[in-house]
């Protein structure tokens, strides 16, 4: 089993991904506080990433209403 610890991360468009906890996080990404195995992180993302539209689109759609 892969023992790598991952972090759940999010960008300016509120898109989610995962990144190894021991590697430097690329610029523009923010940890959401969840750490764990790859699967634990992905399960968390399945629960919280309920709207997959990028933030800029959501804002544009709200403005167009």
């Amino acid at each position, binding site marked *: 089993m892969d023992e790598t610890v991952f972090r*759940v*991360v999010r*960008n*300016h*468009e509120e*898109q*989610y*991904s*995962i*990144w*190894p906890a021991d*590697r430097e*996080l*690329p*610029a*523009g*990404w923010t940890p959401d506080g969840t750490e764990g195995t*790859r699967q634990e*992180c*992905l*399960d968390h*993302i*399945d629960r919280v*990433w*309920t709207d*997959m*539209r*990028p933030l*800029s*689109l959501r804002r*544009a*759609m709200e403005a*167009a209403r």
Partner: protein
Amino acid sequence: MHEQPDFAHPILLPERIATQPETEEAVYPADPGAAPWRHGDLRDRAAAIAAVLRAVGVGRGDVVAILLPRVPDLVAGALAAWWVGACYLPVDPACPPQRLRFMLEDAAVAAVLTDPVAVPLAAELPDGVAVVDLTGVEPAPHPPARHRPHARDLAYVIYTSGSTGRPKGVAVEHGSLAGLTDAYLAATKLGPGERTSHLAGLAFDATVWETWPALAAGAALHLAPEPVRTDAPALLEWFAAIGITVAFVPTPVSERIMALPDPAELALRVLVTGGDRLRSRPLPGHPYAVWNAYGPTEATVAVTMGEVTPAGPLPPPVGHPLAEARLSLVDADGEPVGPGQVGELLVGGAPVARGYLNRPALTAAAFLPDPRPGVEGGRVYRTGDLMRRDEHGEYAFVGRADRQVQIRGNRVELSEVEVGMLRTPGVANAVAAVRPAASGEQVLIGYVVPAADADRDGLTDRVADVVRAELPAYMVPTSWLLVDSVPLTANGKVDVAALPLPDVGGAAPVDALEEFIAGVWASVLGVEPSRHDNFFDLGGHSLVAGQVTGRIGSAFDLDIPGRAMFDAQTVADLAELVRDRHPAPDELTEIARIHLMVDALSPDEVGELLSRQDSGTDATN
């Protein structure tokens, strides 16, 4: 600062198509006599369908499935989806109903655009899904206002199989599609007044770049008749007859086209290929340039393209990155590899899809933070493809990161084996595949398609000699099979599962002729032979050999001497010998089938059969 170049295309496809002159030819139906749809017709039809979609409540962000054969409404339906702010999902009516229903439910489609033939396929959908039979759609006097999409509105959803069973819908945004369109037009120089083809599998993302760049550039899109799509000589004739100048043709069919002479009136100037690994180069002297493309659906059809000239290394590389694609090669730790080193390809930039529709975890696992310096908050798609960058900056496909073919502990790149096979004179096509043998062991099999004028006798031996001279022993197939053609999937990829499996020891007779011969053996030897058992190993000797050949000879009206058993010592070989000597070998299995049937009858049944034949009723036909 966030990365700016991602969506630098202010003019998205719906705008570019809407501004085409009304009288410009847009789409030609596959039926050769049918009149073309001009851009004005296309717009009116899209408006009419949009009015229906709007009336059933379809709006921005919804998914509209298009379940149609290759008709102009494929295009009008997609434009109608965009018109109301939705995206389109192309579905092939030939798709198995179970998979179809899965996709429509998984994508949570708001509407299905279809025809009377496919309406039943769309049945049993959840409540609230509108099934629209387009044959009943009337022109709309007051169409809804056309939606002006945002670069991040979805343009389309395409399902891919993936390696882990359940298909997933790749969701691509308008900004990515606009970038692809520009890249395709820059490479092909497709322009107004030109003719291009629509022939890729209906649910395959190659239809995206067959369709939209052509319409955005003012070229006419010709829908290909079904029979010519995968038949290389017929397709070339069709290109010539229509005057097609630019065409996308999936890799296996392109490989054949590149090896064929050109019809005199061929106007083709660019042949774009992709979808599978290209293993050969064009013969010199073609009037057209060949462009090889590579790209996962998750990165908007294509991310590299390169011209393939007659001379150069094999297999040909997949070319240079398209304008908006940011490619990098990384090792297993995600660190960039050195020059010339093999690494997994990551794709960043505008082609990166939004993700897998309604699959957050799957999306997060495949679309990762872009580690390149200077890119803030960008994402890369992990392709799982291993590539190398050559000294000219071209990318060369090496293999799949997650599908390393291992044979007896050695890594084997199947395309390298195929390249060797294709170098043998008389070989029209070749496929190397790893398949399970009867023993369960994985074996490397070489499938050889002989050229029309090739001497089939000993061809596989000659191919084996060429491969053996070029490659290490573990890369030489252990079984060889001649096949008449390479079966293709609906998407134009090699359908390995549909290729025959080799005969191995213990195999049962393959047809009625072998079954009959095996039956004769069994009657004199007292044991049931497999088709590869040796007659003399099973206790046969020269005295019974004469009995066997005598009975087989009389069954097929041939004179076969007993010594023939020394030339053909197995059931399979003896069947071959009978075929060689018989004046009508095509009828042999049928004759053998009748013998087997009669042998299985009781004397009374035989009598009845004979009397029925006397009265003119052929019970065996």
